[in-house]
């Protein structure tokens, strides 16, 4: 099972939307895809059509066996586990990540964790084959945070595959073009593409769905397919 951890380098970068859209695009290739919400906001389910009144999830249970009852399947066949409305501790989050290893899935399956931005990724029980995606936007604060993160990562003994992916890229912005060009040529582990800012993503969420189903020929869906293809190549390496 390939584990993917997706988090924003800061809040509000759109990691939950990316998790939901990526999960559905991966599912299209007929592999098992599981999405786990680790964020106390517990909004991943809304992207998958979960009722707004359904507030319970794994954080409301004391054992993983009980948490299993909260797994849901969306209309595309993606299996997802909502966080719930109980504020989980870091230890509980780590236990949930570890317990997900017990899920009986094929080697070809993908498990995608929607991680909260405020928890440092190095606190998670990451392993050699894990892929960590830190989402960034092309702005000066992210520029600052990326350099800080690189300094932290340098001092951590790590073996996981760590990448930065630009989300909500606005091609009309000179600043964003300048930053993206600079990052591409100077930063390690910057993905060679970006996810465009596209109204389709917001509209799809408003319609309780994902870009793949609402606008399959949109720029947004193309970008998520690019991301999925790139992840497949990274997982194979």
């Amino acid at each position, binding site marked *: 099972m390939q584990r993917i951890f997706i988090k924003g380098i800061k809040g509000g970068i759109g990691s939950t939307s990316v998790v939901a859209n990526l999960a559905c695009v991966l599912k299209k290739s007929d592999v098992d895809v599981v999405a786990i919400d680790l964020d106390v906001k517990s909004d991943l389910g809304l992207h998958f059509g979960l009722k707004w009144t359904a507030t319970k999830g794994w954080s409301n249970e004391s054992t993983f066996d009980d948490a299993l009852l909260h797994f849901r399947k969306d209309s595309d066949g993606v299996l997802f586990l909502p966080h719930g409305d109980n504020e989980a501790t870091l230890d509980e989050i780590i236990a949930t990540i570890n317990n997900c290893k017990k899920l009986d899935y094929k080697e070809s399956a993908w498990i995608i964790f929607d991680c909260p931005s405020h928890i440092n990724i190095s606190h998670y029980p990451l392993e050699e084959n894990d892929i960590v995606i830190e989402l960034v936007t092309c702005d000066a604060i992210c520029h*600052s945070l990326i*350099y800080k993160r*690189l300094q932290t990562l*340098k001092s951590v*003994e790590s073996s996981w595959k*760590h990448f930065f992916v630009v989300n909500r890229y606005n091609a009309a912005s000179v*600043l964003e073009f300048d930053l993206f060009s600079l990052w591409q040529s*100077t930063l390690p582990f910057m993905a*060679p593409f970006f996810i465009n800012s596209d109204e389709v993503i917001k509209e799809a969420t408003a319609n309780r769905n994902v870009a793949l189903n609402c606008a399959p020929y949109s720029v947004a869906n193309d970008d998520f397919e690019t991301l999925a293809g790139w992840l497949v*190549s990274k997982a194979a390496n």
Partner: protein
Amino acid sequence: MNNLATKSSQILTSSDIENLARRFGGKSDDYIEIMNTQKNQKTINKYALLKEIDDALKTSKEKK
């Protein structure tokens, strides 16, 4: 230890190389990218915060 040093030499490798390797075959090590460091410096100098971060990184590198 991760090899996460930022690229600073005149001849550099980058993730674009992965695309070349994918498109034309061979190993990614077979490709190198020549980057315009002057253009990057111009971008850094254009924005005050970027300049400040760049200066701080250069200073900390010199101290080491």
